[in-house]
């Protein structure tokens, strides 16, 4: 498969996803729409903190909470957006069969088709982080420290979103619309609870904490926090593990997840084709 073909497919699918997501309004209104949601998400966590910490403020916990919520907008938003793409094309627009027959790599199309949702999630995160730095004086990337690590972690974040996303997309080829929706929501809820997005892992009961500590998404969040913030005095379950070692652990997890996703996606794609599920409609 030529690189040119991959790039052309990705670009076309990305353009399509941009049109589908944004052509219902003007670019200005779309920008406003894109800012309002993350803004209010962050306001919720700020006010929760304000309500509970007025007697006993804990700056480290606030930074942990705020940055974790911002990172969660990217991680969970991107994953959620990617996992519903197949159903959109198959059930709603009924275009999947035509796309599948077209002479282009299918998975590259799906990667591009979900591009706008992933980019929007990254934008949500950027808005939240910038607002935190400017208006709340949270020392995010203070003095430019950690910027290289954050850029690396951000790219790796895209990789893990796509790896997990393709796993979910693969599974959703075999399922009905409602099941796919629930599956996507379930994965998001579990990650929100177990990855330490808004509270330190030390709060979780023993077994759950151990399980949470082996999830690559948890490692990604911890790495991103280490890149963005100065060291915090909170036990998030990784005390004593250096950043390079954590990066290595994360990369191992990412490799395993990517290989699993790749294998599962292709296996299920063949199976769905044999069973005639690529153009099935299970109602909106």
């Amino acid at each position, binding site marked *: 498969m030529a690189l040119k073909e991959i790039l052309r497919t990705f670009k076309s699918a990305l353009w399509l996803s941009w049109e589908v997501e944004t052509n*219902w309004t003007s670019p200005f209104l779309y920008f406003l729409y894109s800012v309002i*949601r993350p803004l209010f998400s962050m306001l919720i966590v700020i*006010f929760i903190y304000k309500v*509970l910490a007025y007697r006993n403020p804990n700056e480290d916990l606030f930074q942990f909470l705020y940055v974790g919520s911002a990172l969660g907008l990217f991680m969970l938003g991107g994953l959620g957006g990617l996992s519903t793409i197949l159903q959109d094309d198959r059930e709603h627009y009924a275009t999947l069969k035509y796309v599948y027959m077209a002479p282009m790599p299918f998975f590259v199309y799906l990667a591009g088709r979900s591009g706008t949702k992933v980019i929007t999630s990254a934008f949500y995160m950027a808005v939240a982080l910038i607002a935190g730095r400017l208006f709340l004086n949270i020392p995010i990337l203070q003095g430019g420290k950690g910027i290289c690590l954050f850029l690396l972690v951000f790219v790796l974040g895209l990789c893990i979103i796509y790896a997990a996303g393709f796993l979910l997309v693969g599974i959703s080829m075999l399922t009905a619309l409602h*099941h796919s929706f629930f599956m996507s929501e379930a994965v998001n809820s*579990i990650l929100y*609870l177990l990855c330490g997005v*808004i509270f330190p892992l030390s*709060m979780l009961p023993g077994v759950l904490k151990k399980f949470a500590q082996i999830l690559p998404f948890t490692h990604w969040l911890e790495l991103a926090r280490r890149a963005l913030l100065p060291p915090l005095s909170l036990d998030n379950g990784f005390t004593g593990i250096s950043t390079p070692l954590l990066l290595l652990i994360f990369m191992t997890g990412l490799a395993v997840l990517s290989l699993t996703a790749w294998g599962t996606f292709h296996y299920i794609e063949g199976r769905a084709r044999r069973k005639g599920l690529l153009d099935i409609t299970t109602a909106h």
Partner: protein
Amino acid sequence: MIEGEGFWKFLERQIRVIIARAYVRVVGMNREPSWMLFDVSLPVLYLAAYLFLYKSMNADETFMGCLVLGGSMVGFWMNVLWGMAGQFYWEKEMGNLQIFFLSPISRMSILIGMALGGMYSTIIRTLVTFFLASWLFHVPFHVTNIWTLLAVFFLTLTALYGLGMIGSSVFMLWGRKGLFLTELLHEPVFFLSGFYFPVRILGFVVAGIASVLPITLGLDGMRQVIYGGVTNIIFLPVGTEILLLGILTVLYGIGACYFLNVMEKRAKQDGRILTRWL
């Protein structure tokens, strides 16, 4: 009303429509048991994350209770947004909307049926979420007056679903634009209505403005009745909230009738009833 038809015949037909539309919702929920499992467990997972956050900040039982109630009631707002307001979009996409318009039935009856069916499933989900979260996180509750609680709860629901009916009229004209608007009403409403913290924290002016959403008053009122210790963080006395909810119920009911007629007329003039994917 069909020409020559008496009032009682008309009423009987509308009641049959309401039952029929509600039946679809109830059967739809029960036909796949795994959906019920997801419906109940997913809100608990999200709520658990917030409860762990509260615990990490040593929140007292009253605040934990406020969160449990707010987190459990999220289902109603989602149901109003997607199951009421957004439903006409999906009906349009599936081709049902035109059949509704051709049938000798009131649009309000269809929406009331949808609301009743949606309420039934959401009440079950909310109760299970509430009791499960209270049990798992040891959050005690004590209902001081069951009748006041029921009055606040059902007035909140009727006003809320009335608002949902007004929302559904928007989808006669709008397609995807309406869907994006619906998505936009998640986080801002969670924030302004005080789903995750008592609304009083926002100050009287903001909380007052947010009171156009019945769930704001409903949550505050129910918290007062279920958790006695919230006296220092209440927004308005529960009696006032019941009165305001009653007014909102009437206003939104009348508003729904008006907007449905206006939007239907405009949608027909603009040829939007049959359009898909726009």
